[in-house]
């Protein structure tokens, strides 16, 4: 179906292929624009553009990667200027931020809060949120959304080699942050 079906077949096929990825797209949109209203608009615009361009999608390829590429394209052209000005720690600032959080945890007298803050999910969230944006975006595409390097390169519109170096550097920063925040790889499971 897909390319050769009737418009109704095409819509059915599109819905079956694309709509299972709505939560992934919305999560990515929220991280990019950082407020729910803009994220909803970005999501809707992405889905509609994907539907109009569905003839360009190759059946059998990764639909989520294709949709994320469209989402990032729209974000770069229509949303980025307003959304990005307040974010973006450098690697050095990231190290300081994690160090400060770690010290605050150690100085905390509230054991309940400490347990919560040291759950694996919360630690990953804290480390990811503090991570410099270019590393966070790349790691989330590769690790959370399971895109390969070429697909991440297409989505972010950056060279393949840059994806490779960002993944490497991003994971190193995450590993360091998780150690400081007391998740020792291999000893999680909280």
């Amino acid at each position, binding site marked *: 179906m897909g390319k050769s079906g009737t418009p109704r077949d095409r*819509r059915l096929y599109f*819905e079956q292929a694309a709509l299972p990825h709505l939560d992934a797209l919305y999560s990515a949109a929220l991280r990019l624009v950082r407020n729910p209203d803009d994220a909803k608009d970005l999501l*809707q615009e992405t889905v509609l553009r994907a539907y109009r361009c569905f003839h360009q999608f190759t059946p059998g390829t990764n639909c989520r990667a294709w949709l994320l590429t469209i989402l990032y394209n729209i974000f770069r052209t229509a949303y980025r200027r307003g959304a990005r000005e307040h974010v973006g720690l450098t690697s050095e600032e990231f190290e300081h931020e994690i160090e400060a959080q770690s010290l605050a945890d150690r100085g905390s007298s509230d054991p309940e809060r400490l347990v919560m803050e040291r759950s694996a999910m919360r630690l990953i969230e804290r480390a990811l949120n503090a991570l410099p944006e270019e590393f966070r975006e790349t790691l989330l595409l590769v690790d959370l959304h399971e895109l390969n390097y070429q697909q991440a390169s297409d989505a972010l519109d950056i060279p393949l080699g840059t994806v490779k170096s960002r993944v490497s550097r991003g994971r190193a920063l995450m590993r360091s942050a998780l150690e400081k925040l007391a998740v020792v790889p291999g000893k999680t499971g909280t």
Partner: protein
Amino acid sequence: MNCRVYIREFLSAHADGELSGRERTAADDHLRGCARCQASFAEEHRVKTLIRAETPLTRVPADVRLRIRAALGEVADVALNGHRTDPRRAGSFPARRAMRAIRWIEARPLRVALPFAALASMILLIALGVGRFGTRDSVPNVPATPVFDLATASFDGLARGFTPNVAAESARRGDGAYYAWVVDRDSNGGRSDESADLGRAYHEAGVPEEIYDFTSAGYGLYGGRIDESVDGRPMTYTLYRGEKGEILSICMHAPGFAAPVGARYWAGTHTFFEYKDRSLCLTFSPAGHFVSILVAQEPVADLLRDVTLADASSSAS
């Protein structure tokens, strides 16, 4: 290759399966002789897995889902009828558009001459065994089959990036959303409590409980999803993972669907096809015009064996 080069140039790409053949061979050779880099490799995998497992996706609010479906309806209408409305405003009429989609599904003519009842009778006649529909050369090719296209596209889209959305407790909230089901990724499968809960959740959603026990075939239950199909009815996706890859089970309401020609094997109520480089197992549910389709990358003969084993395991339990 020394440790410095391995860590700086190869580690992440090695963990991500992104090295070329020669690079991978060199990296594997280095790892075999270096305990320190083996530990770094394990840590790299651990961070990758933690990010995947501990970063939850945010569910799209129900009203936004409706708005998007309605907007898609508007775009489709433009293609069909030539009249244009603003898709951004289309969310105010979701119910009308949902009804239109249902009418369309119900009005679809039978695409294949062999009706469901005749097929079911035929399957019942041969239900006690396993057989092959001729040799590969004598079996006609499977014609283009939209339901199979949906199944293979779903497999390609979901098999690796699967996010379960069904609660083990099968609780549905007032807003229609299901609680996230935290998958036991270390589960070795089997007829666990999770599979029983998943089956119950499907049942409560009005979809047949199509849960297989592929443990003996080397696949574990990974998780399930309940989504809405285009006719507004619930449909389910169940993913099984193992060393050989994935098997995705899709169960959907398909009242006008009949099996296409070109089946390779039959086993009980299952019919097996090769379709677009995938192996498919088609099963008609006895009630409610539901079909279940298993999609796998493994050869169709292997899928036949795995399903037969799963059925045997289910009968024995």
